[in-house]
């Protein structure tokens, strides 16, 4: 690991001497893009991060939201892209482990895991299949061993991730407000390292994540051990209950270096530690290696001297190793010793605060022409196209993925994966709904509108369960920020997300930036991922059985917005066109109306229109409920468009509602009062999915056939290649 020349000069002038090799290693880990956010930090400040329910404490690794009655929900998102691209099983699993420990560091118990996965073209590329299959197994094995349900996520495939993987993991925690750990430290407190032993695995991981894969030496792999993680969770929970912990931090990217220097910096203390006291896996490790090792399943705890015995007893009971590696000093020096010899002595403030950069940004040239529409081949057989779309890996059911995850352990999962958003029962009688969404295809065509679209889609998904969005997590994944065109797309996405968050007053409670995501084909498409948490005060909308003659109502306008759609990209192999745009006011009206409708108990099912447009959204309702539906496309509100556009446009702010005929009148009254654009477009009956335009049949498919294709195509692809 090394510093750039300029950074080394900077460090020298700050400390007034040549740094030792250990100091260089510590600083290089902390000043890497991954840990310091040096390219992005200046700009991230624009996000709204406060709100009536946001609780902030210094040094927290995850966001905290007050959900009433003395309870809090915590949430965090992380990625493990670079490690997963070379070792998908271990990379994805250790990603889960890292984000779980971030939840733990606030003193809350992790109750749910989400993951967003992106790979290359799995239809053509065996490497992409290998990455996909192993990343899913890694997440399943780790989460299932921990007894924490993996309750949702998303999977997407795009050529831009060839020979690469985006593995995003989010976790949710829950606990009593009074049990939150309020990080503090006093001079003389002990610094304890708890958990797995420190080895040579994962050395240089944080800097590895800040280089593009083309230049790395691919040595930074970590081995997951979920059983130690489980013991750590229980040990920390017990220590928390006995009020033993003054402060706690997870060891993630940058290992001990970052954990120690960030803790010292945020709490305004000094830390003196002896690397000889660190329990290592192998003998003869150099202090530099110990300081930057990214061995998994480790936590740093600051504890009062008097309470050490109790903590040691807990660790003994759970058979977790804990070592006292140092103590808190006055001042703010990070002092690393080996026995009596000093290897590093440097101000925590200098280590933890890298020089923030002003990156140049420039609008990418490709954007000039990308929104131009192309004359496409006309479609003769819509039913056939529909079957092709339902079998496309991006649209096909992801049951092969979530079927491997234990999504019910902990018995909180009220609405299970496979719906718009999963719902968890909380101890105070309320419910929490959560979803993560991304859409790189749209973000590539329009980074701003695409990012807003992801945000709105995640909101729509939680709204469909009856939840009011209360907080969001953002994960911004882009290529090399030194390229001004890439940096421009980052800024545009961030501005879009900020505008939407401000308009809807949804605070950003946490996030991550992952840059340098490059493959041999070049940078990945801009891939911001948005996670939204929603709260349900009374009862969630649990989908009910649909009967013959139930009505299908659509809310929201369908516009000529096929840019980045599955229809353009999968059927026509065309990248470009009009990116869907969110009209904030319309979005808010629709969202509030749907929440109102659910509260009044008027509907059986709510489903949002997203990938594949109206045609796929209606089919999904039919297939999951095994009932046919007759839809009249001429009744779909919005611009007057040719049928392919009405069917497959991916316009936002649209919801499909299924209701009993008798509730139609009160529903219409409510929607008219709210000035919402809507119409009744179909009726459920029989066992065929039928889309008609003025009585003329356009699509006519049996539900069974569609279901078979939709349910099985992803699994077939994995098993039979």
């Amino acid at each position, binding site marked *: 690991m090394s510093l750039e020349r300029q950074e080394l000069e900077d460090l020298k002038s700050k400390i007034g001497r040549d740094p030792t090799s250990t100091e260089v290693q510590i600083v290089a880990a902390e000043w890497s893009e991954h840990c310091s956010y040096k390219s992005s930090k200046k700009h991230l400040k624009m996000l709204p991060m406060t709100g009536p329910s946001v609780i902030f404490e210094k040094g927290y690794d995850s966001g905290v939201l007050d959900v009433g009655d003395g309870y809090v929900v915590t949430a965090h998102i992380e990625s493990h892209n670079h490690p997963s691209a070379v070792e998908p099983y271990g990379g994805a699993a250790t990603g889960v482990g890292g984000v779980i420990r971030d939840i733990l560091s606030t003193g809350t118990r992790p109750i749910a895991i989400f993951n967003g996965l992106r790979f290359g073209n799995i239809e053509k590329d065996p490497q992409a299949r290998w990455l996909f299959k192993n990343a899913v197994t890694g997440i399943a094995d780790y989460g299932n061993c921990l007894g924490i349900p993996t309750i949702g996520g998303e999977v997407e495939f795009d050529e831009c991730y060839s020979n690469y993987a985006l593995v995003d993991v989010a976790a949710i925690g829950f606990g009593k407000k009074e049990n939150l750990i309020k990080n503090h430290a006093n001079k003389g407190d002990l610094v304890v390292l708890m958990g797995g032993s420190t080895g040579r695995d994962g050395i240089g991981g944080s800097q590895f994540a800040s280089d593009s894969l083309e230049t790395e030496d691919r040595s930074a792999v970590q*081995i997951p*051990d979920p059983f130690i993680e489980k013991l750590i969770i229980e040990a920390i929970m017990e220590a928390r209950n006995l009020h033993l912990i003054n402060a706690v931090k997870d060891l993630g990217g940058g290992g001990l270096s970052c954990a120690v220097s960030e803790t010292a910096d945020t709490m305004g203390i000094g830390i003196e530690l002896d690397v000889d006291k660190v329990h290592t896996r192998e003998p003869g490790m150099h202090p530099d290696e110990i300081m930057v090792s990214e061995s998994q399943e480790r936590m740093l705890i600051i504890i009062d001297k008097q309470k050490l015995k109790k903590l040691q007893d807990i660790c003994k009971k759970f058979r977790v190793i804990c070592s006292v590696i140092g103590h808190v000093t006055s001042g703010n020096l990070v002092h690393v010793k080996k026995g009596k010899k000093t290897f590093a002595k440097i101000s925590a403030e200098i280590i933890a605060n890298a020089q923030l950069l002003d990156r140049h940004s420039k609008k990418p040239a490709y954007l000039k022409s990308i929104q131009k529409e192309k004359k496409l081949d006309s479609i003769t057989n819509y039913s056939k196209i529909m079957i092709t779309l339902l079998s496309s890996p991006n649209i096909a059911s992801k049951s092969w993925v979530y079927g491997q995850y234990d999504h019910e352990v902990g018995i909180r999962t009220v609405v299970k994966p496979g719906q718009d958003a999963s719902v968890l029962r909380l101890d105070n009688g309320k419910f929490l709904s959560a979803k993560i969404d991304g859409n790189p295809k749209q973000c590539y065509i329009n980074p701003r509108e695409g990012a807003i679209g992801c945000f709105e889609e995640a909101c729509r998904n939680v709204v469909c369960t009856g939840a009011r969005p209360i907080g969001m997590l953002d994960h911004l994944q882009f290529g090399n920020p030194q390229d001004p065109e890439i940096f421009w797309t980052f800024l545009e996405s961030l501005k879009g997300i900020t505008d939407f968050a401000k308009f809807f007053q949804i605070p950003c409670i946490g996030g991550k930036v992952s840059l340098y995501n490059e493959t041999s084909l070049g940078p990945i498409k801009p891939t911001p991922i948005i996670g939204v948490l929603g709260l349900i005060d009374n009862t969630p909308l649990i989908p009910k059985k649909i009967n013959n003659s139930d009505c299908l109502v659509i809310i929201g306008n369908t516009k000529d917005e096929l840019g980045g759609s599955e229809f353009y990209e999968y059927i026509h192999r065309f990248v470009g066109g009009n990116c869907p745009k969110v009209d904030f006011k319309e979005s808010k009206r629709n969202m509030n109306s749907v929440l109102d409708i659910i509260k009044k108990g008027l509907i059986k099912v709510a489903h949002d229109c997203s990938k594949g447009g109206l045609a796929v959204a209606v089919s999904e309702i039919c297939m999951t409920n095994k009932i046919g539906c007759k839809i009249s496309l001429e009744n779909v509100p919005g611009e007057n468009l040719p049928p392919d556009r009405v069917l497959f446009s991916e316009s936002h702010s649209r919801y499909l509602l299924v209701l009993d005929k008798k509730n139609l009148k009160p529903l219409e009254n409510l929607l008219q009062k709210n000035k919402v654009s809507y119409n009744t477009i179909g009726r459920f009956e029989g066992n065929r999915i039928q889309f008609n335009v003025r009585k003329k049949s356009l699509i006519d498919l049996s539900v069974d056939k569609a279901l078979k294709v939709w349910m099985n195509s992803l699994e077939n692809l994995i098993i039979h290649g």
Partner: protein
Amino acid sequence: MTLFTISVTIENKPGISDPEGETILNDLVLKGTYKTVSKIKTAKMLKFAIKEKDKTTAETKIRKICDDLRIYNPMVSKITINVI
């Protein structure tokens, strides 16, 4: 052509942790009376039966199969090939 039996042992590279081996050591072996054991490493072994003209060709072919078909991940594991 001769029939060769070839074993391929796949194990984590040195320095990479092996939670399964450590668990067997700490929670099984050292809990009993076998205090002289200091390390256990887990591995997976595949036995191939292959018809080739000679031993070297057989071994080379097996190594190629393991590499091409991703029978192990060279980032994490190493393989040892033995002709029995």
